[in-house]
């Protein structure tokens, strides 16, 4: 193996080097901006996390698994997973091994940076080393990935995707240059190995690389470096605290526009909402199109499904809530004198908070009460005759300050009651209590968990009915609070149970969500019907849920009976 030229240089490396310098510089600037935008405490946390040995290991492993091998995408869609990981991992290995090869055989050339990229041009007989053979294997792998990408571009259905985004001209330039890089490299190498040292192919290869690197920081390919930063942010525990800034910016930049969230979004049951899923939010964030960001943010149901299917972990609902919070209203609610609600006394008892919505589905409240009586639990009903809202609707509407006024007021009432347990029947309230309340010494529990405990303790005596229910996982209870199993356990004690095709993390929002600000009820029927269709897909003859809003929403359109879990339990239990 010998060097062909003593100079070790040819002008065709210049486009590559220029692109390289450009992309590194811009990405560095972007990273510095994002880090500077973090809150002071978050920034400190992040810096410290970079020094922490455990987190260094975790960051490295996560970056390899998520950015190179795309494990989460594999789990979701194997073909897509193969496509992405063959390109990312293959390319990474080619770069890594290329440098290793130069380090081993021509260490004095390592500083040129371009030697590994154009190895076969500068080195005679380089193809005979074992490293070269492995690299050729990886190049074939990348080429396979690229061919799949080309097929997907024109025929996305074979990937099981019904809808994908349409790339902009800018992203198309990036896409085509990416497609061109590897075939050009392959051809140039083969020619050089056969002894043909004409430089046109090498020029083309270098220019394709340059174009790709120049468009990278301004299009979807920014996700490659952004995701690495995102992983370190996430592992350091940095949250989204400012609209459009810091973590919000990095999350939006980390979205590769894979489009998986489009088919997942329940709003897309109505074609009018096709352009409002999270992939469009991140895209409009990047473009700085405030008008569209506003529309997309206001429409979303905040059901959280896009986050549960997203392999990058873009938190669409949180991004939207903060975008809403950035808005100015001239009239602000003020609950400082909402002190008329009296403190209920409940020393060491269970305090039951039913929430506003349950007032419209009174059977739920009555059933909870009846079950508590049957089990002989000492309880007080905090808002039987009306009370303050938990604050979640204000919170999701982006009125964070006002929401926290309500939260503080409720905290006083609950702590003042002296209760030991706060029992909640509405998952919307439950999530707010879990996430934003400080109730020292008081256990907050949703009735599904609580009744399951009572059942395990033998305080509830079930009689199984012949009915068969399918359980609809309410978004706030399932994806929101991670409660999936206890409702099913309870139902299977009380009656038969069947599963809908899409369930648990993939459950489809009923469409009634208060999360959406701008969707009228008249425009939600299709969403509700699509959710019902999924439930009809099971062999059950009735629907069970554990959210007053789902119950009310389904009841409008369902042609099968819909019941709240508490009602089912109440009907199938007897006083011991």
């Amino acid at each position, binding site marked *: 193996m010998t060097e062909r030229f003593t100079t070790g240089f040819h002008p065709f490396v210049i486009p590559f080097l220029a692109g390289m310098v450009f992309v590194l510089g811009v990405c560095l600037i972007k990273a510095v901006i994002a880090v500077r935008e973090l809150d002071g405490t978050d920034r400190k946390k992040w810096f410290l996390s970079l020094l922490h040995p455990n987190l260094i290991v975790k960051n490295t492993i996560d970056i390899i698994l998520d950015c190179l091998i795309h494990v989460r995408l594999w789990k979701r869609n194997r073909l897509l997973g193969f496509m992405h990981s063959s390109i990312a991992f293959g390319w990474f290995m080619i770069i890594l091994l290329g440098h290793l090869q130069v380090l081993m055989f021509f260490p004095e050339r390592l500083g040129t940076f371009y030697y590994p990229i154009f190895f076969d041009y500068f080195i005679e007989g380089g193809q005979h080393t074992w490293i070269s053979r492995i690299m050729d294997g990886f190049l074939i792998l990348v080429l396979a990935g690229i061919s799949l990408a080309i097929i997907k571009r024109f025929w996305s259905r074979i990937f099981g995707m019904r809808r994908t985004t349409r790339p902009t001209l800018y992203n198309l330039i990036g896409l085509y240059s990416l497609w061109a890089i590897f075939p050009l490299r392959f051809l140039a190498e083969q020619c050089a190995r056969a002894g043909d040292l004409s430089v046109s192919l090498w020029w083309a290869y270098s220019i394709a690389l340059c174009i790709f690197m120049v468009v990278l920081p301004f299009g979807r390919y920014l996700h490659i470096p952004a995701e690495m930063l995102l992983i370190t942010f996430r592992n350091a525990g940095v949250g989204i605290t400012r609209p459009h800034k810091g973590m919000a910016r990095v999350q939006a930049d980390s979205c590769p526009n894979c489009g998986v969230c489009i088919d997942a979004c329940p709003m897309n049951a109505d074609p009018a909402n096709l352009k409002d899923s999270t992939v469009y939010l991140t895209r409009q964030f990047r473009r700085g199109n405030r008008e569209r960001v506003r529309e997309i943010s206001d429409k979303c149901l905040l059901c959280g499904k896009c986050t549960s299917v997203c392999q990058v972990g873009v938190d669409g609902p949180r991004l939207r809530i903060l975008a809403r919070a950035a*808005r*100015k*209203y*001239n*009239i*602000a*609610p*003020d*609950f400082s004198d*909402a002190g*008329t609600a009296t403190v209920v006394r409940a020393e060491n008892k269970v305090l039951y908070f039913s929430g*506003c*919505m349950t*007032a*419209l589905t009174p059977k739920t409240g009555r059933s909870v009460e009846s079950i508590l009586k049957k089990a002989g639990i000492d309880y007080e009903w905090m808002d039987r005759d*009306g*009370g*303050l*809202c938990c*604050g979640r*609707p*204000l919170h999701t*509407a982006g*009125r964070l300050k006002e929401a926290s006024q*309500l939260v503080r007021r409720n905290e006083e009432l609950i702590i003042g009651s002296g209760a030991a347990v706060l029992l909640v029947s509405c998952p919307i309230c439950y999530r707010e209590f879990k996430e934003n309340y400080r109730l020292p010494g008081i256990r907050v529990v949703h009735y599904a968990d609580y009744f399951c405990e009572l059942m395990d303790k033998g305080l509830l005596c079930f009689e199984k009915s012949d009915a068969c229910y399918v359980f609809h996982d309410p978004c706030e209870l399932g994806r929101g609070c991670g409660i999936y199993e206890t409702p099913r356990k309870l139902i299977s004690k009380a009656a038969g149970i069947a599963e809908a095709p899409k369930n648990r993390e993939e459950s489809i929002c009923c469409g*009634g969500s*208060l999360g959406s*600000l*701008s*969707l*009228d*009820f*008249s425009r939600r029927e299709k969403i509700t019907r699509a959710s019902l269709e999924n439930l009809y897909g099971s062999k059950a003859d009735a629907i069970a849920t554990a959210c007053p*809003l789902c119950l*009310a929403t389904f009841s409008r359109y369902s042609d099968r009976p819909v019941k709240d879990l508490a009602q089912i339990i109440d009907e199938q239990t007897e006083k011991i």
Partner: protein
Amino acid sequence: MTDFGFTLSRSSTLDLQKVDEGRFEQLCRLEKGAAVCIGCGSCSATCPAGSLSGMSVRKILLAVRRGQDIHRMLQCCMLCGKCTMVCPRGINTRHLILSICSIYD
């Protein structure tokens, strides 16, 4: 004045100078639902803030047209959405309320 031990309720005569259709039209542009309210009062009946501040979507809509004060009522709305759920006209009352909050100064 002699105190007879009883009073008349305060006059609620409309001040036509204050009637403000412009505001109302502005509101209708932001939220079309404002125009289709039939004043049934379902929202008033269900509103948990009613006892705190007299809040009611029906009254607010009237007050916007009449140019009466709406601040007091809006101050206690918790955006809980009960009014949306009971409205027979399917009006997105929460969006209506937020829109009102944004057009006044």
